[in-house]
């Protein structure tokens, strides 16, 4: 089985896990659900780090930054806003949900 096929297995099974977990989420928390999924989809930062951190011998476009590093920098920057912003705002929302005294 090729690596792509293995990845496809992982993907499909993860979709099923997601399907069952998400149906269990209470509708009252659908906004924090979106906020936290926002945060964790910031996981693309992993790819951004690999791009920015790669050994790259191409010519610098300004100072000593190459095109690749610039692309990687912007990607990491945006994904970080997602991750930190997403988790913090989720925390803020969830802290507001209180039971009757």
């Amino acid at each position: 089985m090729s690596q792509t096929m293995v990845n496809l297995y992982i993907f499909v099974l993860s979709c099923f896990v997601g399907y069952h977990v998400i149906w269990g989420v209470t509708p009252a928390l659908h906004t924090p659900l979106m906020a936290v999924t926002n945060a964790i989809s910031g996981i693309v930062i992993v790819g951004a780090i690999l791009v920015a951190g790669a050994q790259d011998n191409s010519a610098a476009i300004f100072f000593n930054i190459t095109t690749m590093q610039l692309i990687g920098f912007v990607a990491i920057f945006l994904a970080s806003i997602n991750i930190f912003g997403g988790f913090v705002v989720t925390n803020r929302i969830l802290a507001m949900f209180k039971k009757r005294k």
Partner: protein
Amino acid sequence: MGNTVAQLNPDLVGMAYLIATLFFIYGLKGLSSPKTALLGNASAMTGMGLAFAITLAFPSVGNYGLIFAAIASGAVIGIVIARKIKMTAMPQLVACLHSFVGITALLVALGTFLLDQLNNTVVPLITMIELTIGSFVGAITFAGSIIAFGKLQGILSSKPLIFKHQHFLNLVLTVAIIVLGIEFLMHHNATTLVIIDVIALILGFLLVVPIGGADMPVVISMHNSYSGWAAAATGFVLNNQLLITTGALVGSSGAILSYIMCHAMNRELYKVMSGGVGLHAVDLEAMERESTQAIKAAAVEDVAFLLENASSVIIVPGYGMAVAQAHHAIKELYDVLTEKGVSVKFAIHPVAGRMPGHMNVLLAESDIPYDVVFTMDEINKDFAAVDVAFVIGANDVVNPAAKNVQSSPIYGMPILEVYKAKQVLVSKRSMKPGYSGIDNALFEAVNCSLVFGDAKHTCEMIVKAIRGAA
């Protein structure tokens, strides 16, 4: 790509990614109840921390100065926004964050391709396909979310922008992308990839432009889903399993939310995806005119009297509550009625507001306990027995035409059955019809009275009247 993990034990990386995935799953599972949700969020954060740590430890990763500068600046901005943002502006924030995931996925796909070209790596066909799909989904997500953000923020008109041959144009662009995609797979030309992405951006814009404000819950959920698929596609490109699992979780989450929203609006998902949401349901001219319905207007004092002498009240908030920022005033109303021994509950329609769960967050912000807030399915049976149903800034979601007028554009949409209550009170700004542009027969019903004015002001006046009388 594959060689990045070569010197770090691949099983160690795999194990770390598996644990991070479990932390994420637990994070989502925590949201099944407000009691466990905060712990869940902490769990998801732990997973993210682990993912950061292991990725930074890859031997192929250098340029730490650059990386940490990017993370730190993003973190500062993200945290500041998250702390300052008003809860009424959450839909905009979420749309904005979706666009970031989209553009990041696009950049990573482009960057990875350029990197492979620089290193003269022979890229297998399957990776090229994944790369094309990854950048395409990223571009669609980015462009669509930006438009959604603009509409929600009020930078763009929230009215649907409809022009002729819209669907034909979308079709032409899609065909162009497919043709160029094949060309790219054959010749590996970076310019072709860039052109594909530019067309995908245009397509992303066009798909959301015709969608109006009240359909935003569907659009936001859909982009939530797309952002997940974009992350998963990036995972396939990089052969990174953590991105695949996480992307799949987020993607299915958004897909389920889209399904719930479509169901609650009686829309078909494929129509939403092809950019045709509500095209037939929205009568633009009808939205502008004042209705000529025969209605009864009530004074604030009458409303106050009815509310304080009821034994049970159900409050139905809608988008109008968010617009008027009336939720704190409603909390006061809740307090004063509860003090008088009135049982007060809240009923939330799934598509009330501009995003899933929007109303719940606003009510929670104003300190209304979550255990008096109910979903449509939970509370519909209670309306028949309730003394007063008080509708604040909602219209279509309480329109009985959805149940009994087959020719109505909203026929078939599930509604909150407020018309069954002994007395219905509606706080409204004007007699303009709701989003669907149709009259609401509820307003003419014998048991219904309307109180006109800004929802916040109305609620404050009611509270004053009740307090004054006591």
